[in-house]
């Protein structure tokens, strides 16, 4: 039997493509198997994944810490809800939310240029903190503390699907689109510019990268993703109230991003799954258990696995690749090279985050 050589880039691409196809197939199959409540949970995972992916673009790939993405999420959710209440068909209620949050993200990205690290975290935290009171204040528009109710999308006759399944596939379509878009962005010139700025802003500037443009655009895209996710959450949940968009939402997004894998494309998916299922499981123990798990995991992850779940998987993949790679013929008399010396990619040096520009 021919030995599979995973070190060969062509083989790697094929394996990865196969993996993606499999993943997609499973995703499509899932709602046909599970009960509506599970499907609802899976749909929520996809919604969160989009939001966390947006945060990942900004924080993971561009190095700008945001503790305020819950605000964009909220704006997207409320925009969609208000438009749906006004009679707009639900599909048409998402694009305006996307555009609005894109603009708002750009707007916040401008002052953010002057802020770095924890200071940016502070300001974005403040934005998140201000969001529920603001929502309550403009109660004419938002329904105030009483909240807003919308009728959830109904599956059309011709699909033959149940409502929860229809919703799931809609959201899945959005998820696939946004993930594909994000991947393209990361691999494009703009994406490389974002990453360069994250790694060394001064060097990026000397290379001629237009910092302001790239950073504000990153903010805008990232906010838009969160806004789209918010709009989708309105479809899925059907009810919004200001208190469901408290500061904790923003913190949870960041936690999910880190646990899932900072600076990776699929990390947000793992993180979102964490967000939905860990509280679900641990809440049986105690209301506070999810928080304890998350907090402890965040801290431990920073000690031992800064690359999150995605990072661990990647390390496993690298080991697998080096284990199956053919050993090069040593020159006569020399020692054979140690295992692992033929790995095509090496994780970043100790002290930094494991970066994955190719996922």
């Amino acid at each position, binding site marked *: 039997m021919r030995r599979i050589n995973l070190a060969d880039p062509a083989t790697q691409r094929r394996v990865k493509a196969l993996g993606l196809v499999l993943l997609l197939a499973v995703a499509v199959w899932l709602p046909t198997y599970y009960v509506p409540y599970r499907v609802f949970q899976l749909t929520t995972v996809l919604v969160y994944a989009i939001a966390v992916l947006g945060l990942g673009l900004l*924080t993971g790939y561009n190095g700008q810490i945001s503790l305020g993405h819950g605000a964009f999420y909220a704006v997207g959710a409320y925009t969609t809800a208000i438009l749906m209440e006004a009679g707009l068909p639900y599909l048409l209620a998402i694009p305006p939310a996307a555009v609005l949050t894109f603009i708002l993200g750009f707007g916040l990205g401008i002052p953010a240029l002057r*802020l770095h690290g924890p200071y940016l975290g502070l300001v974005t935290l403040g934005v998140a903190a201000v969001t529920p009171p603001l929502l309550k204040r403009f109660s004419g528009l938002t329904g105030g503390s009483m909240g807003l109710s919308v009728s959830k999308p109904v599956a059309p006759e011709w699909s033959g699907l149940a409502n929860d399944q229809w919703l799931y596939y809609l959201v899945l379509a959005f998820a696939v689109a946004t993930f594909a878009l994000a991947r393209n962005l990361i691999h494009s010139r703009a994406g490389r510019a974002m990453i360069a700025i994250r790694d060394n802003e001064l060097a990026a500037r000397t290379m001629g990268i237009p910092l302001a443009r790239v950073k504000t655009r990153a903010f805008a895209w990232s906010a838009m993703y969160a806004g789209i996710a918010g709009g989708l959450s309105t479809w899925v949940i059907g009810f919004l109230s200001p208190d469901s968009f408290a500061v904790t939402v923003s913190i949870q997004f*960041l936690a999910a991003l880190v646990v899932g894998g900072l600076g990776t494309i699929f990390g947000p998916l793992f993180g979102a799954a964490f967000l939905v299922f860990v509280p679900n499981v641990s809440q049986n123990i105690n209301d506070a258990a999810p928080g304890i798990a998350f907090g402890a995991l965040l801290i431990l992850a920073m000690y031992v696995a800064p690359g999150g779940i995605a990072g661990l998987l990647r390390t496993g993949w690298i080991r697998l690749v080096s284990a199956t790679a053919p050993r090069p013929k040593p020159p006569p008399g020399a020692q054979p090279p140690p295992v692992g010396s033929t790995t095509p990619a090496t994780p970043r040096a100790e002290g930094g985050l494991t970066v994955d520009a190719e996922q």
Partner: protein
Amino acid sequence: MELFIQQVISGLASGAIYASLAVALVLIYRSTDIVNFAQGEMAMFSTYIVWQLLQNGAPYWLAVGVTLVASFIAGIAIERVIIRPVEGRPELIVVIVTIGLLILINALAGYIWSFQVRGVPSPWVARNVDLGGVRVGVSTLGILAVVALVVGLLFVLFARTRLGLVLRAAAENPESSRLVGIRVGWMLALGWGLAAAVGALSGILVAPILFLDPNMMLSVLIFAFAAATLGGFDSPGGAVLGGLIVGVTENLAATYVDVIGTDLKIIVPMLLIVAVLLLRPQGLFGHARVERA
């Protein structure tokens, strides 16, 4: 006019509370260059300990005293055990650790004491005092007095004692400090211990007003951040002044600016933070950070 003065004075009182948490933030920032997002939660946890001791029948001042000492020790422990492994790592990692700490402590408090809101007895007499025609609550004066005392003690510690000299030296120049034999790691831990104790004070003072629940300190934290930013993150005196300014501004804005009212008060510190960071990033008293290439 009387309303104005009353609002200023009560603003000073809430400002004093923000100031004490802000001083804690600055203490940690000066010694370890870390913005501790978990400072508020640490204070909240300490407040719960006071509450628990009170529940068990301890007299108020004993409960507070024991808790302050316990907070001091806890602060040292947290720095040595949780923060030390990531000291010197990139900023993002350290920020995430303090956020993880925030989540963890918040959840721990909820786990031990549940998320039910609790009342905390006020140590102050519920009376008003007449100060030159203006009625001021005893609690307001009490808060101002306590914070002034603590800040004064800290000042004496840092400016006039050998330990204070050593703490400042370890914060300014850890390398040279080691060369003269100072155990810098323990000095940093001491900074965290002091910060934890001072921060605990802010929680203890604010609990009778805000009522105790695990999320009590989240908004106070934002006000404290505003205060520290306004004062310059490396200036304890600035943090105090910043806290007072934030408190008074917040109160006056809530009273006189209709659109803000009491529920949007939190916009005030937000705008302050943004304004300061954009116009004068080093705050009123801080030192401009030199960009290290």
